[in-house]
């Protein structure tokens, strides 16, 4: 077989291959030899193209070009798509129409090539390489479609050539192949990252449906909105719970209980003081008749009567006795003065005064203790009070007039002076542009 003829062979002849050969026979008489000049060679049973396909398939498979693991991922939301195909075929019309219908927000770059005939394979391969080489300059190509519409096996042949397979394999940009109809499977299909049955199918694979993407976007937006809103509501509830419950209420309850104890103590102290005074008064009162009974005054009077009677009878003789009596009285007076109830009363009175002084003093020291405890409760209250909330970045806004806390914009008038308290101080401002609004805009 001459080289020029051999070049037209689509398949590689192998030992043991059954072929149908046609050509001319020449006879070399001297050597007694026949030479067969083969012009055409056809594998027996299958067509030449079929065999070539099988042979290349086997070769590339061995090299791992069809391996699933090496295939690139097709992006779900491309923005720039390159198409290597014929600019005039039905395939490009179908693809553009489908892309436009589903997802018109992309840019399509068409690399025009011949898709059949001599040199088509080389053009397709060059197209794939050129798009790859220029991808950056074109703003980045997300995905490439290589293909053509339906035709005969010969028409589709370019997509079965090794040069195309190698170009697809070498591409950095993911490639969707779209050659012919459903039934046509080419080498390009096997090497491509994704095989689409038809050009229309390729367009469906390459872009999502816009409304689906918008729905997805909306769903995400709702999710973020709901959870952000839920977060703030949860925190508000928790804050309310903290203010109402737990340490806040406990602390104030504690203070109330302490106050009660203090009140009781005061009452008890008062009572005991009163009862002591009462007792002392009773002692005084019971001592009164005794004092009266042994009163030196009446004793003196009685004695005086007797002295007068004696004086009458025994003027002089008795006078000495009188003096003696007088002396006795005097002595009695001195003694009774010393141990007198009056004296006792006086000392009792002093005792009462001392007691009445010491009891309030005890109460006072108790109060100091309670005051101290109250202060520690106050510290606890501060910890849960608004001040720590302020420290976390919240602020309290009050009307300047009346210092009423602003809880709603409904409480505001335009240009109303406000005082805003933050963690370390306060500042004034003016309410302008008052709007009633949700924390987040409902999408």
């Amino acid at each position, binding site marked *: 077989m001459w080289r020029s003829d051999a070049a037209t062979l689509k398949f590689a002849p192998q030992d043991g291959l059954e072929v149908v050969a046609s050509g001319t026979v020449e006879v070399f008489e001297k050597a007694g030899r026949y030479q067969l000049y083969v012009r055409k060679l056809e594998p027996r049973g299958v067509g030449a193209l079929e065999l070539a396909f099988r042979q290349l398939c086997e070769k590339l498979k061995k090299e791992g070009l069809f391996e699933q693991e090496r295939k690139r991922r097709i*992006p*779900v*939301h491309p*923005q720039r798509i*390159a198409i290597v195909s014929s*600019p*005039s*075929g*039905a*395939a*490009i*019309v*179908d693809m*553009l*129409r489908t*892309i*436009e219908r589903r997802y*018109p*927000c*992309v*840019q*399509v*770059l*068409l*690399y*025009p090539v011949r898709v059949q005939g001599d040199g088509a394979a080389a053009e397709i391969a060059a197209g794939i390489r*050129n*798009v790859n*080489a*220029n991808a950056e*300059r*074109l703003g*980045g190509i*997300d995905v490439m479609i290589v293909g053509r*519409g*339906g035709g005969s096996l010969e028409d589709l042949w370019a997509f079965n050539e090794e040069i195309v397979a190698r170009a697809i394999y070498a591409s950095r940009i993911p490639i969707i192949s779209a050659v012919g*109809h459903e039934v046509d499977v080419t080498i390009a299909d096997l090497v491509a990252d994704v095989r689409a049955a*038809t*050009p*229309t*199918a390729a367009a469906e694979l390459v872009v999502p449906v*816009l409304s689906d*993407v*918008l729905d*997805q*976007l909306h769903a*995400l*937006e709702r*999710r*973020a*909105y709901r*959870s*952000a809103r839920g*977060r*703030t509501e949860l*925190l508000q509830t928790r804050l309310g719970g903290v203010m109402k419950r737990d340490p806040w209420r406990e602390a104030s309850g504690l203070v109330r209980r302490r106050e009660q104890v203090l009140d009781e103590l005061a009452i008890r102290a008062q009572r005991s003081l009163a009862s002591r005074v009462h007792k002392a008064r009773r002692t005084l009162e019971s001592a009164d008749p005794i004092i009266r009974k042994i009163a030196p005054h009446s004793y003196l009077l009685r004695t005086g009567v007797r002295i007068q009677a004696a004086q009458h009878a025994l003027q002089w003789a008795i006078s000495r006795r009188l003096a003696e009596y007088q002396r006795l009285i005097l002595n009695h007076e001195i003694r009774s003065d010393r141990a007198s109830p009056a004296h006792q009363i006086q000392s009792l009175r002093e005792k009462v005064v001392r007691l009445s002084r010491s009891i309030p003093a005890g109460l006072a020291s108790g109060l100091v203790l309670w005051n101290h405890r109250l202060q520690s409760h106050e510290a606890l209250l501060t910890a849960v009070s608004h001040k720590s909330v302020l420290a976390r*970045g919240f602020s309290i806004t009050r009307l300047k007039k009346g210092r009423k806390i602003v809880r709603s914009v409904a409480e505001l008038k335009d240009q109303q002076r406000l005082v805003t308290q933050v963690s370390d101080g306060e500042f004034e401002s003016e309410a302008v542009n008052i709007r009633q609004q949700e924390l*987040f805009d409902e*999408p």
Partner: protein
Amino acid sequence: MSKRKLTFEEALKQLETIAEQIERGTIGLEESIDKYEEGMALVKQCRDILSKAELKIQQLQQRADGTLETTSFKRPPETNISLDS
């Protein structure tokens, strides 16, 4: 966020991450509000990309230096019969 404009896919992925972060509640309130605002900006960015209603089609042409230039592409007339099916 980087200065480079995010691709649609990147923006969408970031948006998903943000929604998840806010949902899980592992970030603080202030951060989740920041994230929410960031997410809404991403939503807007995605919508802007999607709102380009007209399919932009250009043809590539190889220059002498091997680089490609884009030229306008005249679409072949539509036929009612598709060769696909």
